[in-house]
């Protein structure tokens, strides 16, 4: 990586030097052209002076004209013939124009090269910084559940705990492990999305089958956290999207809703779908901690974790909603969120294009 960068910087410097040289050459040619014309003009002035001296000395007009064919000689004055003057100026103008166009083109091409190389270097620096930031954030996100896990293990090791306390600690440890497992999945999904390595299909997907499957996987956890999940998805609704993407999106939205409800001691999460013209909308409503309307723009940013103070960081990595938004964008859908404020729950609306009534559908 370092060698490539060094090479790019060397090329950039060479091109900058070349551009400076072309610029100098242009300037030099301009100066030389003007100087050459001036020198010729001086030469003709000298000839005119010599012709005038001959005429003053009594030399015949015709002979002087033959001696200095470039001059217009008559009894009143001796000067450079107008056609020669015009040719001289035309020659100078032609050369200057040629240098301006040719040199200008080279200069433009070189400046374009400098721009391209500079932009590439900047983009690479940005990617490197983002990668570093990503790694730092990922390691930070892992260290917290890891610390909690280690603390639980060492507490059990250090202290004689009654069975119910031990059971509570074991449940906490399992929850931390689930949290880390979720993080691994989300980080991989996010990385695939960031690098465009997700080969997304567009095909009819039966929404109720996906929702029911995902909900069934979270029922146990919801029960532990005293959360009731209600699903109202008509059986025949099909969306046009990638089946895996729909699964990931519903999973992340449900994960987010559960994380929002758990800190308030339990509540409800409702998933309701309906057809709306040419689209299908799935609304996921929770009775959890909600968010400030001002915080809405930050919800879908990578590593954004709102209201963590109220406990939403319980399972949160700050990647779930980012993944949801990216996947919805890439599959032609959209997502929006609303809340009436802290402590008043939230609603996330996922909208996909409706699939036609194809015989084949995927769940």
């Amino acid at each position, binding site marked *: 990586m370092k060698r490539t960068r060094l090479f790019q910087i060397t090329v950039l410097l060479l091109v900058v030097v070349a551009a400076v040289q072309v610029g100098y050459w242009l300037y030099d040619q301009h100066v030389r052209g003007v100087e050459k014309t001036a020198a010729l003009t001086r030469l003709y002035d000298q000839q005119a002076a010599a012709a005038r001296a001959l005429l003053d000395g009594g030399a015949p007009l015709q002979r002087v004209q033959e001696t200095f064919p470039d001059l217009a000689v008559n009894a009143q004055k001796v000067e450079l013939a107008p056609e020669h003057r015009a040719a001289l100026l035309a020659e100078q103008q032609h050369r200057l124009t040629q240098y301006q166009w040719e040199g200008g083109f080279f200069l433009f091409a070189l400046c374009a090269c400098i721009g391209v190389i500079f932009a590439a270097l900047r983009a690479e620096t940005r990617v490197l910084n983002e990668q570093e930031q990503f790694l730092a954030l990922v390691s930070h996100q892992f*260290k*917290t559940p890891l*610390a909690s896990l*280690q*603390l639980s293990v060492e507490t059990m090791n250090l202290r004689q705990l009654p069975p119910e306390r031990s059971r509570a600690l074991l449940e*906490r440890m399992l929850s*931390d492990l689930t949290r880390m497992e979720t993080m691994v999945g989300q980080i991989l999904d996010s990385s695939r999305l960031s690098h465009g390595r997700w080969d997304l299909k567009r095909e009819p997907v039966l929404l109720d089958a996906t929702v029911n499957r995902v909900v069934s996987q979270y029922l146990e956890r919801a029960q532990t956290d005293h959360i009731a999940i209600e699903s109202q998805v008509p059986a025949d609704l099909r969306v046009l999207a990638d089946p895996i993407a729909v699964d990931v999106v519903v999973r992340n939205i449900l994960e987010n809703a559960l994380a929002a409800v758990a800190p308030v001691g339990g509540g409800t999460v409702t998933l309701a779908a309906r057809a709306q013209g040419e689209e299908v909308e799935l609304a996921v409503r929770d009775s959890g901690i909600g968010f400030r309307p001002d915080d809405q723009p930050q919800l879908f940013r990578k590593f954004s974790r709102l209201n963590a*103070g109220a406990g939403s*960081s319980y399972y949160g990595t700050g990647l779930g909603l980012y993944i949801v938004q990216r996947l919805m964008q890439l599959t032609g859908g959209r997502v929006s969120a609303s809340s009436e404020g802290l402590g008043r729950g939230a609603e996330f609306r996922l909208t996909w294009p409706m699939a036609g009534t194809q015989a084949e559908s995927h769940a």
Partner: protein
Amino acid sequence: MSEPVYQVLVVEDDPHLAAGVVENLRAEGFRVDTVSDGRRAVEWFDTHHCDLIVLDVMLPGLDGFAVCRTLRERGTKTPVLFLTALGEATDRIRGLEAGGDDYLAKPFHLQEFLLRVRAILRRWEWYRASARTAGSDVLKFAGNEVDFRAFRGRSWNGEEQELTEKEAMILKVLAEKPGEIVSREDLLEKVWGYDVFPSTRTVDNFILKLRKRFERDPANPVHFLTVWGVGYRFIPEPAP
């Protein structure tokens, strides 16, 4: 005489980790309160006080460094133990510069955490006890005056000095052994405790600050003398 019951405030946004820390501190006999975001931590001090703050760095609202700085600016001297996933040397220095007393990177060992908590409280107990002792709560030397209980002083030119807790503690350690050499390691052990700092150079920086406050010519000190390669010697009244 029974051991005092210390009050600890745990500022941590992760509910599992907060619960684990709180349970263990309570099991060790501490009274513990917990707050989960930076702003609430600062507000908590409007109506409460405690003997130690266990403070996470990446907090919602206001990060841990800012919380510590805000509390110090408000004059809160309560010792702070940073507990955070940011474990780089630069982060540790930032934490200590913000006014922290110790720094423990996540994930950490429970027993090490408890030892550090006790070590911080022991150091503070030593400082407070020695500052309470009649005759040792105020230090007077060469026109300078330092009140260890109020963390305030007045320098030889009449200028009021507001000392940080670390400056006061260093001065206290030196003043307890006037004329004797105190090694940098001794100062570290007594004021910060074992391996908090990446180098003993940090002690040197605090000595420079003390010289600026109390020496007539900080470039040619006569009270806070460097003993090269060893440490420092405090001379309250140098011979003319």
